[in-house]
């Protein structure tokens, strides 16, 4: 192999490595909206129906130490065949990740929230996309000095508890894929 060819190969390798490293960085810092939610991360979650027999159902969904709240809410929605719902939650967390939607990249920038925080306010909704319930939720968390951080919830680990109060409607709300943002958006007109 000539010197020129060897140099070319070496440069190509460096280039490939650089691209791989950069894409790994991007994968670590950004997450696509459609990424699947892992299940089974809230094994202690408990659910109680608070108004049996009524068409609009009220549930208490309670999380305990170590439960991951976002995947738990998703699991609740699937198990209880939720087609439209809204909720609020309070509690406390040890470690969480929130997202900030970057419209240029069409991805959520990951923001790590490390350590013990008050879950000051979580609110969200549940609607169907391709026949399956999708949980969409935002939260504000507070540190030991009362300063706050907030964002789109990617993961949130209960410590010691999170109390979610969920109202499940008898109606169905559907989402459609929005190519401009790569997000699934609620479209009340969708049948």
């Amino acid at each position, binding site marked *: 192999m000539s010197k020129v060819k060897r140099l070319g190969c070496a440069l190509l390798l460096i280039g490939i490595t650089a691209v791989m490293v950069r894409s790994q960085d991007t994968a670590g810092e950004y997450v696509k909206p459609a990424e699947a939610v892992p299940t089974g991360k809230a094994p202690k979650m408990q659910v*109680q129906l*608070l108004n049996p027999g009524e068409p609009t159902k009220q549930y*208490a969904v309670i999380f*305990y130490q170590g439960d991951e709240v976002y995947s738990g809410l998703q699991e609740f929605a699937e198990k209880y065949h939720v087609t439209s719902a809204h909720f*609020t939650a309070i509690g406390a967390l040890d470690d969480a990740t929130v997202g900030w939607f970057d419209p240029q990249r069409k991805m959520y920038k990951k923001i790590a929230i490390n350590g013990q925080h*008050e879950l*000051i306010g979580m609110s969200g909704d549940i609607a169907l996309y391709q026949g399956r319930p999708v949980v969409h939720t935002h939260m504000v968390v*507070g540190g*030991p000095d009362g300063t706050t951080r907030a964002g789109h919830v990617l993961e949130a680990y209960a410590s010691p508890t999170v109390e979610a109060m969920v*109202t499940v409607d008898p109606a169905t709300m559907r989402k459609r894929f929005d190519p401009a943002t790569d997000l699934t958006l609620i479209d009340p007109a969708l049948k």
Partner: protein
Amino acid sequence: MRWKQIEDEPKTFALIFETGDEIASLLAQFAAGQGLGGSSFKAIGALSYAQLGWFNWETKKYDPACVLAEQVELLSLIGDIALRDGEPQVHAHVVVGRSDGTAHGGHLLEARVRPTCELILTESPIHLQKKYDPETGIALIQV
């Protein structure tokens, strides 16, 4: 504080607080008076004073996170009511906004209203029970 029941099913109340009202104590009084035990609520308004707590995992108590003795927007107050040994326990968290738009938040310890706070509360027929949890050493809702 004045209140009105605005719906029978689900049983829903509007609580309107006025200047000088302290939200945590009045809400606890209202819960005891109405026999509430399975409620959720949210509110917005404005405050002249707020004391916020942060749960200290080591001591299992709320440390005072910050005291704001100034006019702030009550941007969000979210909470629930469950029973412990038959008595209603109010659990509420708040986010407040200062005059420069920055936010502070935490567990509601004390909040003095100025000029108003509008709270909507929904009570369920089935009540929630708090019990001592040996793993964490505090009382948690058990269903």
